[in-house]
């Protein structure tokens, strides 16, 4: 097991960060936008990419002795907490959806006409007269499997269930893993079932804007065979879904139908066409500075095109002996193609590309107006009030249980509390020394909740087997440059933001001139220079406000703020890395880490 200490940077990480690595997984508590602590579970590669390379923050690992049984118990406890938090967050979203649904019900009861969405139904052109052959084949498969009248009977049953669903607010509940579904969840499941059955019966073609064309060459004969084989297997599996016992089969069927139509279009046109998988509300973080944008787009495009080529080969040309393309591989190909296409669009428009984590499961919704029963306005108003109260109670419960506090409940204190709880025993009782298995308690004083203090305490108290160090991207690049061309000129260049070859300023980086993380002796001097530069930039920002919306002024103000600690020999700011090339991700991520004995 490793205890990780991540050095600070400006922004929301000025105190540093900590995590716990068990095998390949790293568990760490992050503060989310709502101010709640959330347990994250990342692979080592992903964690290092995020923190050491993009966030430019060196990571110190302390290898700690812990028996296999205790390590397994600790991991299981952290996994259970992670799943419980996800259930809590999902419950909050579902309770908010209850509010939205009952607001719609109230408006409808007062005479309005409300529409409600069904995910993945928005890919179909329901006004088209010519049916899609792929969906007609699937419809025939369903009839062959379940009987000729099955689809109509199933749709009638779903319609009846939807009409009979009482529009009653869901109580806040316990937010445990096995909580019963909320009203909005059940309503969505039924209306997506209905949408899937109706669309399957009509078998409409895809909308003209439903697809994106993957960059690359035309489909080869072997790729066409692989794609047709995948489509046939999926068609057989999809035919079973309308009779599934899982309550949420509607979306799976809708997505499967849209993908079948996309695969049919690919085979017809001889090129790889995939569903447009981007959610409508995908954020587009700001671009780096104008002078950096060409290199930024080139780097991202290199990664994206490489990913498409690899995913295409994995799905449509698997090596001998490997299984044929399955849902996982197809989704990865679809995601990679969507990223590559979006990058081309963004680069052409000079706009930021969209951001969303993998995988991008296509969900484009379509609205239906016939799924919400017209009820009594007074009753709907009463249920709406109850739903709002339940959502508010849930939010209050989450705040009480997981609210971040700089002192007392942060990423350090919560991690140690989790360790204590896991090692205290299965009954949850707090043993006299739950961290005894590790060497002794390391938290107790107020300042023990500071990340770098906690790392020192771990080093002093726990059974330490050794250390490892993951340098930041800038540290790696600087060392490589100085190894290639040692000398004062290179050293000085790498010390400044304008001369460092590897510094690719993130859009939110503050204004500064000198890096001070590797310059302890000269830190106050560099800090003073940084302060002057930042203040000057801030003053300039007053003039440029109309053009940049205050961006330069904010960067200058933050730059001045983070220069102050440097005057007292304390470094917080390290700059971030706006982009990495594909070769840097594969090479830099794992090179130059150092290990040592205790």
């Amino acid at each position, binding site marked *: 097991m490793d205890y990780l200490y991540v050095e600070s940077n*400006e*922004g*929301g990480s*000025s105190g540093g*960060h900590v995590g716990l690595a068990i095998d390949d997984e790293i568990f760490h508590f992050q*503060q*989310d936008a709502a101010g709640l*602590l959330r347990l994250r579970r990342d692979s080592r*590669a992903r964690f290092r990419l*995020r*923190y050491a390379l*993009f966030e430019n923050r060196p990571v110190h690992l302390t290898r700690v002795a812990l028996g296999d049984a205790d390590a397994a118990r600790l991991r299981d406890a952290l*996994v259970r907490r992670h*799943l419980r938090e996800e259930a809590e967050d*999902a419950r909050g979203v579902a309770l908010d959806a209850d509010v939205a649904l009952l607001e719609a019900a109230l408006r409808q009861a007062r005479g309005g006409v409300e529409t409600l969405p069904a995910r993945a139904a928005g890919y179909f052109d329901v006004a088209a007269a010519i049916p899609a052959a792929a969906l007609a084949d699937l419809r025939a498969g369903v009839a062959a499997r379940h009987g000729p009248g099955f689809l109509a009977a199933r749709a009638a049953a779903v319609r009846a269930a939807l009409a009979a669903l009482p529009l009653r607010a869901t109580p806040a509940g316990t937010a445990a*893993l*096995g*909580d019963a579904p909320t009203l909005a969840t059940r309503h969505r499941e039924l209306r997506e079932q209905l949408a899937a059955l109706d669309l399957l019966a009509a078998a409409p073609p895809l909308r003209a804007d439903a697809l994106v064309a993957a960059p690359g060459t035309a489909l080869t004969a072997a790729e066409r065979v692989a794609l047709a084989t995948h489509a046939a297997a*999926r068609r057989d*599996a999809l035919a079973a879904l309308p009779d*599934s016992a*899982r309550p*949420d089969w509607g979306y*799976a069927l809708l997505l*499967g139908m849209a993908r079948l139509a996309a695969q049919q279009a690919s085979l017809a046109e001889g090129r790889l066409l995939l569903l447009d998988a981007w959610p409508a509300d995908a*954020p587009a*973080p*700001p671009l780096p500075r104008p002078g950096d944008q060409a290199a930024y787009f080139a780097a*991202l495009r290199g*990664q994206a095109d*490489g*990913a498409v080529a*690899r995913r295409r080969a*994995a*799905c449509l040309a*698997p090596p001998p002996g*490997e*299984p044929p*393309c*399955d*849902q*996982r*591989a197809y989704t*990865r190909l679809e995601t*990679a193609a969507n*990223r590559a296409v979006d990058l081309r669009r963004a680069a052409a428009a000079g706009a930021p590309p969209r*951001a*969303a984590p*993998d995988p991008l499961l296509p969900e484009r919704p379509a609205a239906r107006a016939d799924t919400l029963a017209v009820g009594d306005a007074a009753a709907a108003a009463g249920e709406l009030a109850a739903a709002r109260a339940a959502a508010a109670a849930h939010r209050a419960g989450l705040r009480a249980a997981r609210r971040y506090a*700089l002192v007392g409940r942060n*990423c350090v204190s919560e991690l140690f509390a989790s360790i204590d709880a896991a090692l205290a025993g299965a009954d949850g009782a707090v043993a006299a020394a739950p961290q005894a298995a590790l060497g002794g308690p390391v938290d107790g004083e107020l300042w023990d909740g500071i990340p770098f203090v906690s790392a020192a305490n771990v080093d002093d108290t726990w059974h330490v087997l050794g250390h490892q160090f993951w340098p930041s991207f800038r540290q790696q690049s600087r060392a490589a440059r100085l190894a290639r061309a040692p000398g004062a000129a290179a050293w000085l260049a790498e010390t400044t933001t304008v001369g460092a070859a590897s510094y690719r300023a*993130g859009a*939110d980086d503050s204004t500064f001139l000198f890096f001070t993380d590797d310059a302890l002796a000269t830190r106050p001097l560099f800090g003073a220079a940084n302060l002057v530069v930042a203040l000057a930039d801030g003053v300039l920002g007053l003039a440029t406000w109309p053009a940049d919306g205050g961006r330069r002024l904010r960067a200058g103000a933050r730059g001045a703020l983070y220069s102050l600690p440097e005057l007292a020999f*304390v470094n*917080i700011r390290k700059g*971030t*890395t*706006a*982009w990495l090339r594909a070769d840097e*991700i594969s090479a830099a991520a794992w090179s130059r880490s150092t290990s040592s004995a205790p």
Partner: protein
Amino acid sequence: MRVWSLVLAGLSALSLAGCSISDSVSASFDSSASSLGSSSSSSGSSSTDRESYRNDVRDYTDAYVKSGGQFDNFTRGLTEIAKKHGVSDWEADQDTFVGIGAGLKKAGVTPTQLAVWKSNLANGDATRAASIQKGYGQ
């Protein structure tokens, strides 16, 4: 040590935030993390990807059983786990059932209880039942 600790605590308080990350590099990170994943997977459904999926299903099943949740609501959470792995039709993926079997074993479910789970989840499909049994026996 304590003086420096307090100094840093004060400086941390300046920002009134901590334990969070910058969003400005999100687009690059998401794209790069995608590349990172692809470099470790060379096949259509590499053994690493499949094992990761099975393990997540196993952990969810174990946690679910230990939480005392009712079977009726089990599959909704399973849908969310599968979605993270790019699987929407999880009934068509035998790794789902192998993972469930492994999770039932980890949770200490007895063979009698296992038979009930198999009956409910396999829904008469012998292949699914065999996959659950396979995961339970591993």
